[in-house]
């Protein structure tokens, strides 16, 4: 498990340190406080020797290449805090029982000034501007002190983005469930198929039954153009999972990813999406059980007060597995406020607002 994370010059995070991480970590804060950026930073660290992960997090935010202009700059430049590509991105983390920190630094080594002159008739004259980010360098110092450098770059002739990958010995499996679960359902189907083969699908089914007890089983049905997951809800026909509602799809995504992320990290943006308040206490109990069973550390964001309070209730007095952190925008930067176990008890019992 990660015990601390330090992120510098990444997205909206100039310099953020979070200590005392637990098995399940819940991040709250106002809009644009940097919660999703934090998850992305942890995800980048998980893929530290696979620079194509820098494209993946753009996709998770809904960014897409324009086919007529396959330029990665719109995805890569916003990785840098304040769009300043001269400042190195650093993501540093420590894991339990590891003496050395893991350290990822990302730079844009070949951003040049494109010189040109605006036509004289324009009111605002510019003599040049920074060129597009066409290469990212990932330098990773692993838990054993070894350094690995890999690049993602654009082929200047074809515009295609390619990324060098490398094996690493301290690999941590990392999965990201974005705020929009429907987009990841195709990937989840493959993972669910794998769980079926390993006879681990019952854990996913149990999680779904928290939301809808009428779901009796799940089935992968091969169809033209790919497989589809159906739910047996006791009706004459099976029902496509996609039409079972956002909460069910969301829970399916989380349960599948959690089971598949065994031994690693699961990042969930807006974990409460689609969840009715009545299922929240059971949701936490299930999540805690699965995360322990599969040894998965969870990092999740939320704006939902009921979800936070149901977590405090579900985790009881001990809170040894639960961390709550608020990201505050202060003095031009983002700072993390960590709730101690004592403070969590105060929040739970006195009913303090924690979301900022």
């Amino acid at each position: 498990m990660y015990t601390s994370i330090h992120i510098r010059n990444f997205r909206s995070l100039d310099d953020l340190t979070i200590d005392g991480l637990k098995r399940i970590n819940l991040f709250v804060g106002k809009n644009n406080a940097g919660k999703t950026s934090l998850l992305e930073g942890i995800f980048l660290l998980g893929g530290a020797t696979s620079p194509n992960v820098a494209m993946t997090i753009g996709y998770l935010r809904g960014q897409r290449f324009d086919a007529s202009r396959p330029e990665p700059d719109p995805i890569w430049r916003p990785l840098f805090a304040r769009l300043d590509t001269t400042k190195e991105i650093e993501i540093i983390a420590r894991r339990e029982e590891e003496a050395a920190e893991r350290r990822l630094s990302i730079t844009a080594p070949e951003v040049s000034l494109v010189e040109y002159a605006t036509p004289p008739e324009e009111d605002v004259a510019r003599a040049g501007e920074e060129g597009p980010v066409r290469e990212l360098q990932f330098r990773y110092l692993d838990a054993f002190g070894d350094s690995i450098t890999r690049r993602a770059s654009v082929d200047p002739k074809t515009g295609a983005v390619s990324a060098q990958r490398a094996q690493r010995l301290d690999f941590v499996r990392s999965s990201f469930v974005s705020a929009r679960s429907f987009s990841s359902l195709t990937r989840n189907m493959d993972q669910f198929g794998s769980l079926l083969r390993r006879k681990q699908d019952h854990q996913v089914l149990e999680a779904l039954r928290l939301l809808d007890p009428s779901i009796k089983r799940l089935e992968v049905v091969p169809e033209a153009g790919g497989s589809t997951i159906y739910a047996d809800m006791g009706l004459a026909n099976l029902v496509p999972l996609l039409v079972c509602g956002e909460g069910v799809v969301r829970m399916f995504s989380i349960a599948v990813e959690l089971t598949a992320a065994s031994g690693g990290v699961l990042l969930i943006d807006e974990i409460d999406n689609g969840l009715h308040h009545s299922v929240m206490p059971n949701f936490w109990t299930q999540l805690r059980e699965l995360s322990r069973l599969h040894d998965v550390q969870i990092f999740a964001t939320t704006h939902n007060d009921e979800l936070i309070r149901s977590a405090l209730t579900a985790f009881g007095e001990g809170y040894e597995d639960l961390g709550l952190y608020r990201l505050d925008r202060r003095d031009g930067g983002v700072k993390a406020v960590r709730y101690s176990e004592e403070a969590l008890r105060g929040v739970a019992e006195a009913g303090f607002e924690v979301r900022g």
Partner: protein
Amino acid sequence: MSAASEKHALKVEKTKLLIVEGEDERLLFSALLKHLALEDVQVLGVGGKSMIKRTVAALVLDPNFSSVKALAVVRDADFAEGAGQANNAAAPVAFRSVCDVLAANRLAVPPKHGVFAPGPPRTAVFILPDGESDGMLEDLCLTAFTSDPAHPCMDRYFTCLTAAGIAHASNRIAKARMHALLASRREPEPRLGMAAQKGHLDFSAPAFGPLVNLLRALG
């Protein structure tokens, strides 16, 4: 779902905070602050003295806590654990206990009972009834009722109970005596906080002086 989740979330809304033990105390101190025209103070009833530690830990993390200018904690001295009768050992222990909570949360620690430490935020601790004696809020209120016409009647009532061999709470006698006094009002109200809200307590009585001084310094 906890009871806390069913009510509006608590948050820092004023720059002066008064932490008291429970809802009864919250009502009483709100009435006292109103009497003193000090309405810019937020009174937080924390649900018992054992909750002070965790409440302060959560309070200092509130997004608005940085705006707080002054914070006072008022709690009962009660009685020393295991002591069969009052021995005036509880007040210093209670004072140290609250000071430890303040220190653990990186707040200023007041030098002595009823005195503010410079902050920010300024902090003070008041141990009821008077910072020295064992006892509780009701002991202070009883003192304020000394000249009340019902006081001798209440005394005789408890003398009668003792003579009749009827057992009553030995270290909570102040609560029982206050109940008896409050039963004498035209609109009886056994709960101290509600009684204060109804105007049954004379806050101008000298017994409330040190507490009034603290609240004036807070507000």
